[in-house]
């Protein structure tokens, strides 16, 4: 009986958490579309999420594209299928690696900082203070961040797609001795609109996950510096896991026929 009770408690706690996140997400989305809007906050978040994440995403995708070319070349050489390197690089980058890696990097950079900032505002009563100054904290703090995540991550991923393909090109042409125009041609011929679009849709979903988790854990943090630390950890871990899980299901819905 005791064992059953424990299992039950864990299950109930899980569903309670899911319910809380869902209510939080609903409220956040409502405040994203219902005026008034806080233009300055939105702009600040767009710059923070989009512009300042660019170097991290660019470096990650550049080296992923490079290593992908190198690895697939050594693998495919066994079957004399070296020509497929360009296709593998561009397909893996656009469909999988750019969105997932960008999502994970942004989770570490943005999700953590959002949880820490909002968490600190919570424990120093700044969020309560907003409510006393005729400002809805969800609208002022959460909505601009979620909006920035959903809109900026696809932009980052689009740039990452190009840089990743470039990484593959650099290694292919300068290291593996491919013909430059042939490599370009291969890349261009094989990539389809759907590959890029599916990656961008993923990016939008991951952007939502990262900012939602950062805001949710920060908003609900309790008890001083330690509470903010816990919130930050939870934000990063939960967004990373949710990104990987969501990635599977989005892929399933796009490419299973």
């Amino acid at each position: 009986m005791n064992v059953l009770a424990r299992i039950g408690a864990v299950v109930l706690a899980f569903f309670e958490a899911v319910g809380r996140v869902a209510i939080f997400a609903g409220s956040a989305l409502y405040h994203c579309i219902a005026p008034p809007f806080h233009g300055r906050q939105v702009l600040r978040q767009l710059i923070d999420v989009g512009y300042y994440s660019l170097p991290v995403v660019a470096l990650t995708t550049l080296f992923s594209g490079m290593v992908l070319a190198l690895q697939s070349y050594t693998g495919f050489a066994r079957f004399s299928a070296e020509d497929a390197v360009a296709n593998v690089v561009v397909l893996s980058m656009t469909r999988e690696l750019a969105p997932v890696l960008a999502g994970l990097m942004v989770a570490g950079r943005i999700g953590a900082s959002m949880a820490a900032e909002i968490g600190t505002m919570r424990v120093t009563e700044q969020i309560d203070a907003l409510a006393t100054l005729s400002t809805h904290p969800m609208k002022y703090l959460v909505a601009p961040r979620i909006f920035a995540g959903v809109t900026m991550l696809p932009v980052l991923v689009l740039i990452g797609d190009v840089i990743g393909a470039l990484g593959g090109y650099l290694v292919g042409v300068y290291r593996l001795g491919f013909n430059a125009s042939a490599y370009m041609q291969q890349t261009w011929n094989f990539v389809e609109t759907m590959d890029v679009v599916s990656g961008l849709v993923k990016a939008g979903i991951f952007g939502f996950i990262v900012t939602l988790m950062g805001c949710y854990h920060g908003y609900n943090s309790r008890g001083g510096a330690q509470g903010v630390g816990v919130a930050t950890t939870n934000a990063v871990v939960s967004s990373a896991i949710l990104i990987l899980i969501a990635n599977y299901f989005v892929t399933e819905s796009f490419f299973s026929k």
Partner: protein
Amino acid sequence: MSAPPKIAFRDVHLAFGPKQVLKGVGLEVQKGDSLVVIGGSGSGKSVLIKTVLGITTPDSGQVLVDGVDVVGARGRDREALNNRIGMLFQGGALFDSLTVWENVAFGLIQTGAAKGKAARAKAIETLARVGLDEAVADLLPVELSGGMQKRVALARAIADQPEIIFFDEPTTGLDPIMSDVINHLIVECVRDLGATAITITHDMRSARTIANRVAMIYDGKIVWDGPVDKLDAGENPYVDQFVHGRAEGPIQMTVRR
């Protein structure tokens, strides 16, 4: 028929999980009164004023402002109500990403009462009332000392001329001289605005300076309520023990919250 009290608590109960914080608080504050609520740490003093602002919601009972029950007020009703209330938070709760004048003018800008230059002018005028000059207006809150931050927070609380002001432990963490300065500023501001004030404190010097009425909260209930000059009359053993700061008496200190 006499006007209803400005603020009234009727049998307010509130629990955080298993911990019963308020166990039937009944208290009335007349218009123009400056009530000080005294009580030990963790006795639910702060929670009491947060029920008026809607930051916490009581489990049962009524909280009346001008005779209207405000428990569960949401959206525009809540905004309109909170517009009439100013609050000085314990730690100041200044927005650390905004400058001093932007903090002070925050409520004015959000409600649309003032914009741009006018908002800044109004902020500087309000800063002058708490004894700060224009030089601090463009600093960030972290650049100020604790006492200065309290003054800025006070300026923010009174900037849009509220009818009701709450002060949550206004002198905590300040040296005795700065405490006295803040106490006198509070007295002046309340008098000049003709506001109704509730101050939460366990600093008896502060209580005697600010109050014209005093209420004592113990174990989730108001155990005594009377004019400030009856504070030393020895009417109530709880008040007597608290005022004289004695370890022996009816109030037993618990270690855990």
